[in-house]
């Protein structure tokens, strides 16, 4: 190890959050350029609710989660185009973006289908704003998808920087808090509503505002101990993170992966089983692609669902189930069926689910697969079928 690689006494991390703007809508626009500049909403397949909106649709006041039938009049009036969702396409485009980003740092946490954290601490000798611009331009050219990059010393700050990159044209889609003077950053944080902070939802924000914490800067200056007693340990961590102390580290998945995770926090809480099943199917399909890409087979499947821990006054439920498989597989159909069986076991009605996901573990390489004597078809036999099934 070289001397200058030694950690400094108070190292400042540089964590980036990259996310695709209006992901589903942007995917549709890549393949249908006539949708550019037009108000577009993407609707969920089972119930026809808006799951993604273009900026034009947002400007017309289309709320997230609004069912299409309620939008009919507005749609007629303004020519809003409603599209059914195409999750296979979104999963493919997501994989491309994540794969391109992997080239920019070995430490990546794919946070959701359209968001990824990258640890850029090791690249601080470079100008990280131009590094971020390079990522943004490459993703736009290679995939046609617009992204914003936010950089900060913690994940919470990276999220906020991303928000600024998106909302403030002056940053040209890349915002690095670490490159700003302290006074400059303070001035910026004074202008951002406390509700924009990661983990502070619509319910917590008014309570904080009632106590006089209106802006990000107000909360940053707050006494973490006092607010932990009044609210939760989560809020205490948030305050530390706003001050640059890492409390939520990257869940790094470095290859070869021992586990493959695919999960997402929903933009809108989901209640019904069918919507959850749709999400689980999507996550498992994308996990299975990753599994085959690294030429592994999964020995067990884990499914989990949970309500939002940030909404502590709402009924809370969180559960997961691990299902060991009789023989390791990389077959999407099999994995999806197992995951859906698991979901059925843990699903309880009348909760607002905020996040769901799947995890593949006990991974073995193609050589290490042992066929179960009693199973109908061994993993190797199925390997040839993947192409048509998945």
């Amino acid at each position, binding site marked *: 190890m070289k001397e200058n690689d030694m950690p400094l006494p108070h190292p400042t991390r540089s964590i980036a959050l990259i996310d695709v703007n209006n992901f589903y809508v942007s995917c549709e626009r890549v393949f249908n350029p006539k*949708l550019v500049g037009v108000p577009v909403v993407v609707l969920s397949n089972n119930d026809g609710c808006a799951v993604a909106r273009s900026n034009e649709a947002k400007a017309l006041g289309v709320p997230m989660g609004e069912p299409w039938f309620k939008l009919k009049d507005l749609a007629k009036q303004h020519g809003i185009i409603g599209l059914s969702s195409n999750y296979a396409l979104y999963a493919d485009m997501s994989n491309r973006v994540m*794969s391109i980003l992997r080239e920019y740092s070995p430490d990546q946490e794919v946070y959701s289908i359209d968001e990824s954290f990258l640890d850029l601490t090791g690249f601080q000798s470079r100008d990280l704003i131009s590094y971020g611009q390079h990522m943004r331009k490459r993703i736009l050219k290679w995939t*046609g998808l617009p992204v914003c990059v936010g950089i900060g010393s913690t994940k919470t700050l990276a999220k906020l920087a991303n928000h600024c990159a998106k909302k403030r044209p002056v940053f040209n889609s890349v915002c690095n808090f670490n490159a700003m003077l302290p006074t400059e950053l303070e001035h910026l944080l004074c202008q951002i509503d406390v509700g924009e902070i990661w983990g502070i939802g619509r319910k917590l924000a008014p309570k904080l505002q009632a106590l006089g914490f209106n802006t990000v800067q107000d909360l940053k200056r707050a006494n973490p101990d006092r607010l932990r007693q009044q609210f939760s340990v989560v809020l205490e961590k948030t305050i530390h993170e706003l001050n640059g102390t890492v409390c939520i580290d990257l869940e790094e998945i470095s290859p070869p992966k021992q586990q493959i995770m695919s999960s997402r926090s929903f933009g809108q809480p989901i209640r019904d089983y069918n919507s959850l099943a749709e999400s689980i199917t999507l996550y498992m399909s994308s996990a299975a692609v990753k599994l085959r890409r690294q030429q592994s087979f999964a020995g067990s499947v884990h499914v989990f669902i949970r309500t939002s821990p940030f909404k502590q006054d709402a009924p809370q439920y969180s559960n997961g189930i691990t299902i060991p498989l009789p023989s390791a597989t990389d077959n999407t159909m099999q994995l999806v069926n197992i995951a859906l069986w698991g979901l059925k076991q843990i699903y309880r009605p009348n909760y607002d689910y905020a996040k769901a996901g799947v995890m593949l573990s006990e991974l073995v390489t193609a050589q290490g697969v042992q066929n179960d004597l009693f199973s109908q078809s061994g993993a190797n036999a199925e390997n040839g079928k993947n192409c048509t099934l998945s």
Partner: protein
Amino acid sequence: MLKTTKLKTSKSIPPICLTGLGTIGVFQLPRLNAPAINLPLYASKVSAGFPSPAEEYVEKRLDTNDYLIDQKDATFFITIQGYSMVDVGLLPKDKAVVDRSKTPTVGDIVLAVVDGEFTVKTLGRNKEGAVRLLPANSTGAYKPIEITEEMNFEIWGVVTGSFRRF
């Protein structure tokens, strides 16, 4: 082997209909997780005749994905429609490989978007330096498209190859 996933065309939902809007049905996504299948490649070039059995010398093995795709994260497949590019060997129903990572230069075959419509043409410039999209069909049935400032124009990607089943 090369495998493709057909993209579902995103259908509009009534009452708003997508009249006049192009579809994305022509796009297909390369299935890149497919295991490589290396088939023997014979060293002697085969003119349209019968290869000599004496020349059955295997030079190397060839994987079709590897041969057709340079930059997997930027590659898409499309299906050729129409006869405008037959002189460069692009026939209707052929699959063409489009690589978005390549920087287009004059003379490249490109997938362009002109006023919201996709078209495959050869990239050219006129004397004034303005972009023209050139067909490759000696019957003269297709005219070059002159790109003017009022047009919405974008080069979507560079066509780097094609493949066909008989």
